[in-house]
């Protein structure tokens, strides 16, 4: 079902290279360069010396002055220690993993109930859940800050992760998928004496690898990239994530652009590497989250 679009019939003769076709290719390449250029600038600047960020500051990658004369790899080590990235990195990793785990566990259970068990009030309940999706995050900032503080979760891992574990979006997405699993499969398991929990773990979830990956992935990246909530919900570096560390570093580093860029590269690298390795699942995850049903 995920086949590629073929707007033009395949049996056509080989397309002739025309002027229009060439222009389109040029456009595509130009667009790709625009997408890549800031990343090249990031790499080049992160390897410069402080002086070179001023003397060799040409903004176009095809000019030699865009690049450092000698790459200074030590910038990364310096940014890493100066911004205490080891701590922030670890914090981000744990927070994102805990959030993703919570989302997958809670959403799988609820999605199973909505998809596979008939119970009074299920439709109404699901509609209420889904209705929360249109509420902008800003609305939650103040009340959730007060709630989390009252729960004693201010500046803790729980405060950073638990509020995001109840995900109406994930429940909705999983329910669509679970509903397509044939009822006969579950029926036979039940005849063999399996309860709902066993059915969920041994039949439904193993059949739903792709959507579960999608959800875990989206929850992980959402947590990894979040800035607003960690800014208000943390006070000390104890659980502060990489995003907050990087913004503080940006304002504290002052004019030392090469260190800021080294720090930014450290924050970008794991995501990009993961993206390039798993780009198929990655694009599918994003596309799936975008298209309803």
């Amino acid at each position, binding site marked *: 079902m995920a*086949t*590629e*679009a073929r707007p033009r019939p395949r049996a056509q003769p080989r397309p002739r290279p025309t002027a229009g076709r060439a222009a389109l290719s040029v456009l595509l390449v130009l*667009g790709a360069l*625009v*997408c*890549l250029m*800031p*990343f090249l*600038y*990031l790499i080049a600047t992160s390897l410069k010396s402080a002086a070179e960020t001023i003397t060799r*500051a040409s903004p176009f990658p095809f000019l030699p002055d865009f690049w450092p004369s000698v790459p200074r790899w030590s910038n990364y080590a310096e940014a890493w220690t100066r911004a205490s990235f080891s701590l922030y990195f670890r914090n981000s990793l744990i927070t994102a993993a805990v959030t993703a785990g919570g989302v997958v566990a*809670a959403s799988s*259970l609820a999605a*199973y*109930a909505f998809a*596979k*068990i*008939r*119970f009074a009030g*299920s439709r109404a*309940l699901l509609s*209420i859940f889904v209705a*929360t999706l*249109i*509420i*902008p995050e*800003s*609305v939650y*900032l*103040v*009340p959730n*800050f007060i*709630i989390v503080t009252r729960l004693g979760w201010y500046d803790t891992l729980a405060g950073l992760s638990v*509020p995001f574990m*109840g*995900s*109406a979006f994930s429940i909705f997405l999983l329910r669509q998928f*679970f509903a*397509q699993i*044939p*009822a006969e499969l579950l029926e036979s398991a039940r005849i063999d004496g399996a*309860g*709902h*929990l066993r059915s*969920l773990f041994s039949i439904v979830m193993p059949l739903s690898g792709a959507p579960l990956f999608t959800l875990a992935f989206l929850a992980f990246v959402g947590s990894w*990239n979040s*800035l*607003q909530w960690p800014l208000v919900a943390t006070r000390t570096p104890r659980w502060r994530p990489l*995003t907050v560390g990087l*913004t503080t570093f*940006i304002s504290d580093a002052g004019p030392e652009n090469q260190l800021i860029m080294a720090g*930014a590269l450290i924050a*970008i690298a794991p995501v990009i590497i993961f*993206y390039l390795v798993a*780009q198929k699942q990655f694009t599918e995850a994003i*596309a799936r989250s*975008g*298209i309803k*049903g």
Partner: protein
Amino acid sequence: MDSARHGEPRRRTRARIPAARARDALAAWLFVTPSGILIAVFGIFPLFFTIYVSLFKWRLTPGAFLGLGNFAELFGTGGLPLIGLGAAIVAAALSILLLGRDGLPAGVRNAGGLTLGILSAAALAASLPAVAAQGDKEVFDSLRVTVWYALLTVPVQLAVGLSIALLLTRKFRGRQVFRVIYLLPYVAPTVATAAIFQLLFSLRPDSLANQVAAALGSQPLQWLQEPKGVLAPLFGAPPPGLGVVPAYWMEWVRGPSLALVSIIFYSWWVFVGYYALIYINGLSAIPRQLFEAAEVDGAGKLRTFFSITLPLLSPTTYFLTLLGVIGTFKAFTHLYVLRSAAAGGTTDSISIEVFFTFFRKARLGYASAISIVLFLTVLGLTLIQQRTLERRVTYGD
């Protein structure tokens, strides 16, 4: 798309005995409980709680009960402007209701809806300046920032995203490489990419933005630090002694600040690839036979695009528009990283305004009040889009 409905529980063949049904219901409620509690505590209760908070002077701890005092600070207390604003909202709501009614003849419906729409716009044009003058200027400025931001990001991203999607669904070698590259900006963490743009759009004469400007024959510009509206040079200084209403709309006409425009460039860079990806998905759902049939019928490329591709993509376009507009009101991270003191608040959208009212000024009650107004605005916009755009959406079944 939804042929696989056979898994629905209602197709059970055996009638279940009552005890088993009760056990099922119990299991279902137990399964729903974890998510239910989480969503109730952090997703539903906060809505009511924030209304409660908005009625107080609430620093870090609750203070005096103000009633609607926070809202009075936001909108001012002058009766006439508020009545005008209320009338504008009521007229808009009636117009939308009327346009959504199917029982009426189309002529009556459209004429009535249009009249009410115009009335609403007129009431808004006359009352908004007065409300902004008597209320919180910062909040109304942030509203303008938000509107400019939405107007200059969403349509451009739709158009460019669709164009790229059309190019990337052609078959050619290395297509997958391009798809990966175009999505890179969206995938990379916002804090980090915004930090890059901070340097690319810095005021230094050798920054990328200024080099491009120089190539176009311009002096070095201030970019992210420039508070002046980009259209201001066309209009010059406002004449002294201008009335409240024209003076207010002059501010709109002067356009978004160059600082905001720089941020809008960033938004294009990030989101165009994402829009393209979603459009590629939409395109792949269009049955190939339709294009073949069009070709057999002798339809040209343009004709095929406007009478097949575009209509059949309308669910995708509708979805992206809705997402884009809601996203505008949510946008935070890049606005936070790219804002500068020199830009004088001309890039502070309404979500940034809520954040600083809470985070810097520690005015929790007032921040709640602003966020409630924000919520109602988003709700209203969503309803308007549903009623006006969704009617034009063709679902290809």
